[in-house]
């Protein structure tokens, strides 16, 4: 494709892209995000292409692989355009049916439609599915429509329009003012106002010999929280939106070089972003003299090496510079001294992507969404014990109740909600009583949790909160960089104490020690990881103290999770002697002959729970 030398040429190309695509032409878009790929999206794509070939319609029907549509629970999912028919759990075997329906006047394939479990109604389009209907999709709006590997697709849906707008007549000051006015706050979790960060960065820096001020911008895509995959899905599904935001940032801040720091564990995101950068360079949207306006900006892709702490901004900067990925004390903040000692703005993937939308549609449009202090939409990955696992984009200020019951479809297997863990390992557990809590930065912090990058793990009553706290502490003990003493030693001590409590060896004084340690880590740790590491423990202590006390005083795990405190038994009256449990027991701990009641040898039992799962008459009891 020829290089674009002016904004007019960009608009011409967009017009050509729109004209070149027939809106009435059938198009099958299959989600090829990580979740659907795991469920067999690749096979489905191949089968669809084959089926289209078979009916000889390859000239008339498009088959596209797109980024994540969000409804991972029902994967693989696909959409049939132009109607936007939504199919879920589509297997390769159904590919021929889908193609046949498209050929025969778009009569939907009944068996692939989503059935609302509450009303029993079949939903034809995404808008009718309750999971999507309650969302406000801004960042993820185009994920189901465009092929992330085609810049023309992005241009067709209005991509890079904001770059044209900014370069065509806005001053850098005006851009910063727009971002400030929109009320956008950092989507990485801490919620620092983005506009303020940009102004602070602009105020710093000394001109070099050529009279230029060297500044850098970074996109933080080192998403490491267990259960979080928003940044990943955005980079996989719409990488150009992030690049677009960064070009605007480069213009506003006078940066000539940008970095995207992605985890190496996200190969698809790395691949798609790499393709997107290359395409943008070919079109002249990155490089020297962008769109003939004299702006120079390049993006380098840097891959992380698997350290959770590198998501912390100073550690990330050290890693980009080629040093050990360990945090540094702030101040000086990156806006004063960042990469190579120069003023640097570092923002999350979703923040950069939001910038393009804000510039395009105006600050007022953005600030109308959300609450007084938290504006715009936030993307959550809804996982755990919930019916509708997936990616959810909602306006700030939505209640937890709406999130879990209306969008998430409630808790499976008739169990009840116990807690929601928000914000990854640095976040906290919010109990079921606070289900009417509005989700925004202030309310979550007040409840002892934090927004974090947006992981949301739902837990039901079969979850032991002490065990949850222990799990997160184990994760953080491994991921603490070990540089500063309170974080390194504190996580170790906390894990030791929690393990002790889980094994029934805890003392009541341990709770005071946990409280003290939590306070110490929060107040004195060097970086954000240590300062927030105690949150899971402190919140569970605050809301589920009784559960801790049950472990300590009564040596009982109320949720029947902690192995040292539970015992498996077979009820002699309920057991029908089928022998199913004997077969699955790896430790040969189950004794007894066929048609006679079985018995568990406690000395051999490893409490794996395999017998519990296979027992039809529910004779295996946990006490």
């Amino acid at each position, binding site marked *: 494709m020829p290089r674009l030398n002016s904004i007019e040429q960009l608009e011409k190309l967009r017009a050509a892209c729109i004209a070149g695509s027939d809106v009435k032409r059938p198009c099958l878009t299959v989600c090829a995000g990580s979740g659907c790929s795991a469920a067999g999206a690749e096979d489905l794509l191949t089968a669809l292409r084959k089926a289209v070939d078979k009916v000889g319609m390859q000239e008339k029907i498009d088959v596209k692989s797109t980024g994540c549509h969000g409804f991972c629970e029902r994967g693989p999912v696909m959409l049939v355009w132009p109607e936007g028919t939504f199919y879920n759990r589509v297997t390769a075997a159904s590919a021929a049916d889908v193609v046949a329906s498209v050929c025969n006047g778009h009569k939907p394939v009944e068996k692939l439609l989503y059935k609302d479990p509450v009303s029993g109604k079949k939903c034809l389009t995404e808008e009718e599915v309750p999971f999507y209907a309650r969302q406000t999709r801004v960042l993820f709006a185009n994920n189901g429509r465009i092929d992330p590997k085609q810049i023309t697709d992005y241009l067709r849906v209005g991509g890079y329009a904001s770059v044209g707008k900014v370069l065509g007549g806005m001053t850098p000051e005006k851009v910063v003012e727009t971002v400030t006015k929109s009320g956008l706050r950092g989507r990485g979790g801490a919620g620092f106002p983005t506009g303020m960060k940009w102004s602070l960065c602009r105020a710093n820096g000394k001109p070099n010999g050529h009279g230029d001020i060297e500044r850098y911008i970074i996109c933080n895509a080192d998403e490491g929280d267990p259960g979080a995959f928003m940044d990943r899905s955005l980079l996989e599904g719409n990488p150009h939106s992030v690049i677009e935001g960064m070009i605007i940032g480069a213009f506003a801040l006078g940066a000539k070089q940008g970095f995207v720091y992605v985890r190496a564990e996200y190969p698809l995101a790395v691949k798609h972003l790499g393709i997107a950068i290359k395409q943008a360079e070919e079109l002249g949207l990155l490089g020297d003299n962008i769109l003939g306006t004299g702006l120079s900006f390049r993006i380098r892709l840097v891959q992380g090496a698997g350290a959770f702490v590198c998501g912390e901004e100073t550690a990330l900067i050290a890693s980009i510079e080629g040093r050990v990925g360990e945090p540094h004390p702030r101040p000086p903040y990156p806006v004063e001294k960042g990469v190579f000692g120069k003023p640097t703005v570092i923002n999350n993937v979703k923040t950069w992507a939001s910038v393009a939308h804000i510039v395009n549609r105006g600050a007022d449009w953005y600030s109308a969404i959300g609450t007084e202090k938290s504006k715009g939409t936030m993307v959550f990955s809804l996982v755990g014990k919930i019916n509708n696992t997936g990616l959810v984009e909602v306006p700030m200020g939505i209640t937890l109740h709406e999130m879990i019951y209306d969008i998430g479809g409630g808790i499976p297997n008739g169990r009840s909600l116990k807690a929601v863990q928000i914000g990854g390992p640095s976040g906290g557990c919010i109990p079921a009583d606070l289900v009417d809590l509005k989700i925004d930065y202030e309310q979550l912090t007040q409840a002892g949790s934090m927004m974090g990058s947006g992981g949301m793990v739902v837990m039901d009553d079969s979850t032991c909160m002490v065990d949850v706290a222990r799990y997160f502490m184990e994760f953080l003990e491994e991921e603490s960089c*070990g540089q500063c*003493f309170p974080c390194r030693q504190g996580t*170790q001590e906390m894990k030791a104490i929690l393990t002790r409590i889980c094994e029934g060896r805890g003392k009541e004084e341990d709770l005071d020690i946990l409280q003290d*340690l939590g306070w110490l880590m929060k*107040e*004195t740790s060097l970086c954000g990881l240590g300062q927030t590491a105690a949150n899971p423990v402190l919140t569970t202590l605050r809301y589920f103290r009784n559960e801790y006390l049950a472990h300590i005083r009564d040596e009982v795990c109320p949720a029947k999770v902690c192995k040292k405190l539970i015992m498996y038994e077979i009820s002699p009256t309920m057991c029908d002697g089928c022998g199913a449990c004997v077969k699955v027991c790896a430790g040969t701990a189950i004794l007894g002959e066929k048609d006679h009641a079985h018995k568990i040898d406690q000395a051999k039992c490893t409490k794996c729970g395999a017998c519990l799962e296979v027992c039809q008459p529910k004779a295996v009891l946990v006490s």
Partner: protein
Amino acid sequence: MPKLRINGISVEVEPGTTVLESIRFLGLPIPTLCHDDGLRDIGACRLCVVEVSMAANGRTRLLSACTLPAQDGMDVRTNSATVQKARKLLLELYVATCPQSKRIQDLASEYGVRQCRYDAHNENCIQCGLCVRICEQQMMAGAIGFSGRGHHRRVSRPFDITSDKCRQCGACLYACPVCELRCQASTATTALCSGCLNFAPVCFQSYDDAMCFLEPCHACELTGPIRSEIPIKKLKKALSS
């Protein structure tokens, strides 16, 4: 020239001075384990945390003084209740990590740590990084560094083989705040338990209030009659020379 207040005292310092240097300039006591005047600070031990409020935003936080550049309008408190609590909890954790260190012992005693609620780990390193930094920044060798992460982190050599960059100068040993004064006494002159100097009769452990986290040093292990044969004055003289 930044002008700041430390414990209510106004002080004006050269630009680039850290808060720790400003505090020490005023002669106020502040504990440190990872600071050395000739080395770049990394803020690892966190013992020098002070309560800082900025006039600009009114927020009060605990920050490590050694890595904090003195800024105009800072209000620093080195001995507030929060600072004392943090120091005490930190030192308690330090005592659990390296119970045999004389330096940590003394600090714990000085800042009123009267109990240790954790199991002793008997590690011989608190990873203050002084050895690594002195090797790199003063000896210009860079023969040692950190490897691993979290609780696997340790001071080590490349591939665990002594590097030919190492001149065996011993600076690392000199810099170490923890192992340097490990009591390895077989003779009274190298006995380093301060109890021998400050108390008579000698052994610390016979006092309820005073605490000794050390394994009894040679001098302490000596039984009464033998102990009394060591003249305290002579011992003091031997140690001070």
